[in-house]
């Protein structure tokens, strides 16, 4: 199957134009803020960011701006941050998040079916998120490839990458629907019916790939295993995480990124030793149990940080999640890293977003006050130089 060419056309057509409030081209704007969190080094206090043509032209304590540049002084207490990056979401994915009638769907590309007018994009943007990884669901053992996109923007500039990370599920989700059936009741009844089956399918598929046998969408799987594209594994419980480590050792593939990872804090040593990173599912103060009855810890982020594991937050409301983690022991700077630079690196777009540095996309979040303070509101969010005010 050849989906790449479909995707190319998809970028050329298909996407809906969103608001255009940007100043006319070639204009520069200088933003002066109390603190600029560049995420490339110590915060600049005070700091200035020069934005030209949707890109960051310069950043520093003081910046030489062109004489005709518009100057926006955000005030002494204000902060400027890179636009947040949500490394795991299904926002806008229309018509089903999984193709659950097959076990393996490595060619499942959300980019083929995204509703660009989905309200979720507006909500993400309003909470400071400027880049999203739109990922396939978890009901398939090999689920597909994520689509990286901005939360708003014009047709061609909105998608960053059509087929980014390869997703595998090392959890009981792929077995859930099948286990519910007492016996095969259709022509297309599928495996696996339990979690052991999930691991078995992974193992047999990887084995086929290694031995050159026929498998669906070999290119996608091989590039994921070889590290050409990020490999992301949805694993939540500690035993799923250890199962992932075991398979990883067995097939010697590039260290995957754990997605969900609610119980990573229980197996920090092994995870750190294997060099895995984690995209944490949404933090919650709700119940003490997460998905799949995982046992949650309020300070899971802090514990990962102590163990030296790279991690990012995901699943919406990123600034709130970072603030929440800080309250339970995470360093503020680490918390900001986990919603900007780190997720950008994990999903493979750190050359364009996640930090404030010359040449990067002008995706910024302006906050009135200390970003880690609960009472500090978001004043505006900028995507590619376009300002969306609150």
């Amino acid at each position, binding site marked *: 199957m050849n989906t790449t060419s479909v995707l190319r056309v*998809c970028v050329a*057509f*298909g996407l809906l134009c969103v608001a255009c409030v940007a100043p006319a081209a070639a204009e520069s704007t200088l933003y002066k803020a109390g603190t600029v969190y560049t995420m490339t080094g110590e915060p600049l206090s005070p700091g200035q960011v020069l934005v030209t043509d949707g890109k960051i032209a310069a950043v520093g304590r003081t910046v030489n701006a062109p004489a005709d540049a518009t100057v926006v002084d955000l005030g002494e207490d204000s902060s400027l941050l890179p636009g947040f990056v949500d490394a795991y979401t299904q926002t806008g994915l*229309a*018509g089903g998040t999984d193709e659950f009638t097959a076990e393996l769907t490595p060619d*499942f590309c959300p980019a083929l079916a995204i*509703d660009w*007018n989905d309200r979720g994009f507006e909500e993400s943007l309003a909470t400071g998120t400027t880049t999203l990884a739109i990922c396939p669901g978890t009901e398939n053992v090999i689920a597909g490839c994520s689509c990286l996109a901005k939360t708003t923007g014009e047709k061609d500039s909105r998608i960053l990458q059509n087929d980014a990370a390869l997703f595998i599920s090392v959890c009981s989700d792929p077995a859930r629907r099948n286990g519910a059936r007492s016996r095969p009741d259709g*022509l297309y009844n599928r495996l696996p019916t339990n979690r052991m089956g999930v691991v078995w399918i992974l193992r047999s598929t990887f084995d086929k790939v290694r031995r050159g046998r026929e498998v669906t969408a070999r290119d996608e799987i091989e590039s994921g295993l070889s590290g050409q594209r990020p490999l992301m594994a949805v694993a939540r419980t500690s035993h799923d995480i250890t199962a992932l480590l075991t398979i990883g050792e067995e097939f010697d593939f590039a260290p995957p990124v754990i997605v969900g990872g609610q119980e990573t804090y229980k197996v920090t040593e092994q995870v750190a030793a294997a060099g895995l990173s984690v995209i944490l599912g949404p933090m919650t103060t709700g119940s003490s149990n997460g998905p799949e009855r995982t046992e949650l810890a309020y300070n899971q982020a802090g514990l990962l940080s102590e163990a030296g594991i790279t991690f990012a937050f995901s699943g919406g409301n990123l600034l709130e999640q970072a603030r929440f983690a800080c309250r339970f022991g995470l360093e503020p700077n680490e918390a900001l890293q986990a919603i900007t630079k780190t997720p950008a690196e994990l999903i493979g777009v750190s050359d364009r977003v996640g930090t404030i540095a010359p040449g990067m996309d002008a995706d910024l979040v302006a906050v009135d006050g200390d970003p880690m303070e609960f009472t500090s509101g978001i004043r505006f969010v900028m995507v590619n130089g376009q300002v969306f005010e609150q």
Partner: protein
Amino acid sequence: MRALRLATTRGLCAILASLFVIVPLCGLASAADTNAAATIVLQGATIHTMTEQGTFVGSVVVENGKIKSVGENVQAPEGATVIDLTGHTLTPGLIDSRSVLWLTAAARGEAGSRGALNILDGVNPFLEDWHEVSRQGVTSVYVQPSNTGVFGGRGAVLRVGPGSSVKDLVVANDVAVQAAMGITGDTVRDRAAQIQRFRRAFQAVKDGEDPPNLAGNNNNNNNNQQQNTQGFGRGRRGGAEDLQQGRRGRFGRGGGGRGAAVTQPNKTKELIELILDRKIPLRLEAHQEDVVQAAFELADEFEFDLIVDGLSSPGEALSEVAARQARVVVGPAWETGAAPSYRQDRDDQLLSNIAESTNRWALATYSPEARGSRMLRVQAAAAIASGVEAESALRAVTVEAARILGVADQVGSIAPGMQADLAIFAGDPLDPAASTRMVMTRGEVVYENADASPNNTGVAAVELPEVMPLAYVIRTQRMLNANGEMQPAEMFVQNGLISAIGRTISAPEDVPVFDVGDAVITPGLVNAHSYLGQQSMLNDDTEADSSQLRAADVIEASSPVAKKMLEGGFVNVGFAPTSVNPSAGVMAHVRLGAKKPVVANDIAGKFVLSSDARSNDRLPSSLVGQVIFLDSLFGGSTPVTRLYVPDPVARAIERERRSNVDAVVTGGRPAVLAAETAPEVQAAITLTSKYDFTSVLLGPERIQGLTSDISGAGMSIIARPFDDNDYDLYCEQLAEAAQARIPVAFSGETPRAIRMTAAMAVNAGMPSEVALRGLTAVGADVVGMPAGTARLNEGSVADFVVWTGSPLDLRAVPARVVVQSELETVRTSGRITD
């Protein structure tokens, strides 16, 4: 955190909304500003005053929200704003006598049996649906508790316009008490018991006693609630009534029965007293003959004001309606959704019979959707198409409605001192295709559309012999030509073919000439996509790749649905497999009424991106899966046949599939792509662009912002009928597509639904020529019907329809449908009854 998020989102939405949400009321702000207190003169329109003054061309002067004067020669006061409406038609704002506009979703199902509800408590003045109702000229609606309760409580007449509080919206409250008999009980015995309970309750109140419970038991509230758990809004109704009674208290709903020590005033008694004192009418919903009869008897016995609501199968009781000149509210004239059980066996002639029986009747939409009241003009047109006099239908949505609702002193007619609720149409008020030029309530312009250009279409009577001879000339002032325009023309028909057609033609002298005057002649219309009621034979979801299936193999051209389609003027049908598979099969061109109905059995391939083709039991179950599946199918790979058939059969099936798919990808056969949502439409565009084939979007709901991509990919659109709950946006999009020069065809399962889609697209701004072409030649072309289909040309088969008016005018009906000059079959019809 929540608050922050909400606040920020809202702020953002405001920015975004102001930028790319279409504001349908472009001219509204300016117009509204200028006329707050000033005097406005509406000049030059044909005015239906609905009073003894009658109808004339003249002016209306509006001042301080009221009508100051109306007449043929009214002097414009100094300094007044004069609006020229020459060529337009001005009527009182239309009134829907049964609506759920303004009601919260919960309140729409709220019913009671103790009269404790006041519908005003269920009104939410911040709902936005009114805009769409208003733009169809409706300025007042009547709302009341749901009919699942036998004695719900007070109803009210509300304004269709902006309001910041319930008070702003009220035209009149307490206008009637809602009651119903025979809705919840299905048997004659149930109904007899219900009638008996009403009689006992009224008698008790008359005697000064407390009435027994009307819901059918005398115990307490809890039982009452059980009585009310039919229909929607389940579980909330009893609660609302308790709240009204002050019984809810700290125990909540469940504790009402046992813990209610507080004695409450008996609302049932209070209301029945008001009814007996004739201070408020009883609006009794009665459908069956026995309850209608009982309603009259009750009214006689207890001497109260009765409004009969419903009257679906009155039988002999209709003579009582005539004898008493009873006040009646009926509707809808046409069921646009599923009819409730009590309306299912209505007589086709019901409305015209009622209209002949009593002058005091009002027409209502009875729509379960808030936006449904915007269909009032469609309903009035449907009433006319079913035989009701046009004048009577207009009265039923204006002055008679106002009288029955008790608000005739404020609205419903145009006379000095009346509230300035006015509707101005670019054409006949009851031709739904005529756009609304302006709507005013209380002197305030609530809708304005300066683009509405006068469009005068009329309805004419047609007289033709029962059976047409073998050769004849038919002449009309309005014959539809290939450009979608109506022109005077005559046509010489001989032996099933059109021998000559033109402005004036020469024919042998002995050939009879039929001059149908103003009647409209069109080619047999085209329904570009239909199942003709045979869905069950066309459904087969075992194999996602059903490319080998042909709809033509199961055609039953004499089915009731097909017969109605033909009688409704649609001769050419794109007969299609259903949408349950991503590759659904091959469509056929069916010519209804012909001896050989299948003209071509492979006009187009149908492929489905909408949710109908997603199945949990086979691949694909998701949109992404559908796109990948179709991509691989078009790209040349043939999915494996998983049916248990012998190998040679499987190979034959696969060959057939391949040839049908290839015919689309490389052979020029059009692909009909069913796609509804924006991502589905995007996927259809993507596939069309990649394989560069001819394609048609079937039933897209959301194409806003995608029109340039659609026209860029050379695609066309087959519109599907919309329902009460769809936004006008749907029709606006069709108009937008027409503006982008995207060919638009029409489809559906009933002739009236198809014509309504076209009519409302015209109402929303589509040029009528474009719509008429979509119903004829363009419709035939987009789905690949043979060249020349649905065109009246010299030498082509004489398939044509003689209409009493334009097919876009829903008042018009086909007076005669002629297939091949009637050599093959003879058709006559006079009414539309689908």
